[in-house]
């Protein structure tokens, strides 16, 4: 049997070859740096890897593997590509309305509140939650644990600085989400954008946590993780749902993104729905329906 040799441009066009390259790349990144993206949703991963490959001026994924293995700075750049999830303050205003209406009355019954904002990225959601809790008179008794896999996005979240040009959109979202004050009371102009009131973050702990590899680190009354699990495949989603279940107190609240659900996860029957369209669930008081795998 003769095998036709591939020309230099052909590797790029052959999808099977690229699939192999991506598998090898993910394995290489895991073994070299310990970051495990092997169970990330493949289509989005492929887009981000392709973008990084192009930005590095490299022709093939194989070339990108070589650079990643030998150049930790390249890995840092890729880590940013893979972990920044674009979000907005008060994204889905109806969600925040539902929180105020349905969840806040539950939270009021606790003398002290622990909230986990998992996959907080650059902090838009964390500050939105803090503002809502402040207006409901709950922020002082709350500790928010805002975690992300990526240290540099956490540093940005800690700064609480957001782009000025976003403020019109965020103000509209805030008002639509049931905000009770003038949104501009929460921030001041800074040279690099607008800086949110540091008092909002006084009870926020920003910390590195990897949903793929790390364990639960506390027991929470509410867990907010929106539009993070969509980047994982089903296998990894199920594992993270185990982690979430174990991290929630009895009757704890789980809030997911609008297109995410506990349905079809191993814990489907361990939650009751508080607001189905907004994907707000409450952990049932009984024993889990299925043991941990």
């Amino acid at each position, binding site marked *: 049997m003769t095998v036709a040799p591939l020309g230099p441009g052909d590797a790029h066009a052959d999808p099977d070859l690229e699939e192999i390259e991506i598998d090898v790349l993910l394995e290489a990144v895991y073994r070299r740096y310990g970051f495990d993206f092997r169970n990330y949703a493949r289509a*989005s991963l492929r887009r981000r890897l392709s973008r990084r490959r192009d930005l590095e001026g490299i022709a093939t994924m194989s070339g990108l593997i070589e650079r990643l293995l030998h150049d930790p700075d390249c890995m840092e750049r890729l880590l940013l590509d893979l972990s920044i999830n674009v979000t907005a303050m008060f994204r889905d205003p*109806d969600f925040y309305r539902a929180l105020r209406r349905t969840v806040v009355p539950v939270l009021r019954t606790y003398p002290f509140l622990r909230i986990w904002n998992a996959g907080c990225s650059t902090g838009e959601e964390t500050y939105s939650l803090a503002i809502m809790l402040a207006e409901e008179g709950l922020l002082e008794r709350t500790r928010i644990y805002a975690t992300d896999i990526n240290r540099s996005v956490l540093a940005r979240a800690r700064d609480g600085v957001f782009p000025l040009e976003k403020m019109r959109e965020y103000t509209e979202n805030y008002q639509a989400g049931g905000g009770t004050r003038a949104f501009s009371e929460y921030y001041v102009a800074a040279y690099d954008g607008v800086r949110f009131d540091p008092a909002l973050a006084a009870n926020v702990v920003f910390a590195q946590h990897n949903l793929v590899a790390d364990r639960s680190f506390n027991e929470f009354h509410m867990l907010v993780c929106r539009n993070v*699990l969509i980047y994982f495949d089903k296998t990894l989603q199920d594992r993270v749902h185990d982690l979430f279940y174990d991290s929630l107190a009895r009757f704890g609240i789980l809030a997911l*993104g*609008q297109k995410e659900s506990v349905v079809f996860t191993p814990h489907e029957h361990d939650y009751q729905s508080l607001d189905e369209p907004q994907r707000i669930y409450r952990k049932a008081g009984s024993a889990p329906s299925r043991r941990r795998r």
Partner: protein
Amino acid sequence: MACGIVVVGSSWGGVTALGRLLKGLPVDLAAPVVVVQHRRDAPSVLARLLEQQTGWRVCDAADKDALVAGTVYLAPAGYHLLIERPGHLSLSTEGPVRFARPSIDVLFESAAAAYRRGVIGVVLTGTNDDGAAGLAAVVARGGRAVVEDPASAERPAMPLAALATGIAATVLPLDDIGAHIGTLCGPAAIPA
């Protein structure tokens, strides 16, 4: 030729155009239909509207939905819709691509990577050039391109941009596209 998936992109004038396209599709189409219609971040009534108009099962896609032949999946407002692997989709909140989220290019490129020559890509009316790069990716992997005739499209810019890439595409008036897709899929179609 067998097809695994039909992907459709539409923008300005797309709601009406989608209704007419779906009405023209054979009811026993052996492939799922996945649609990006550019729209604003608002609760969607589009799925219900199209369902009532056309009799097709139309739903807003949820993350990791399995793709079933004979069902129409709409990209939800504010999310990209990607084809994860044959028979499965995923959603993403990555930033807008050329101002669009959902983006037609993102859907088409991911479909091309997952289904390769089993893709029929359709670009309909619109005022921008989303879908042009995506349709070229579909053709580059051996899939088929169908473009609404710019002469009769409500807004010709998007079909024209798709054709300007120089790809081999079948250009048809809107009401003929459904039947053409049926022919391309044929009786020997492989269900997704």
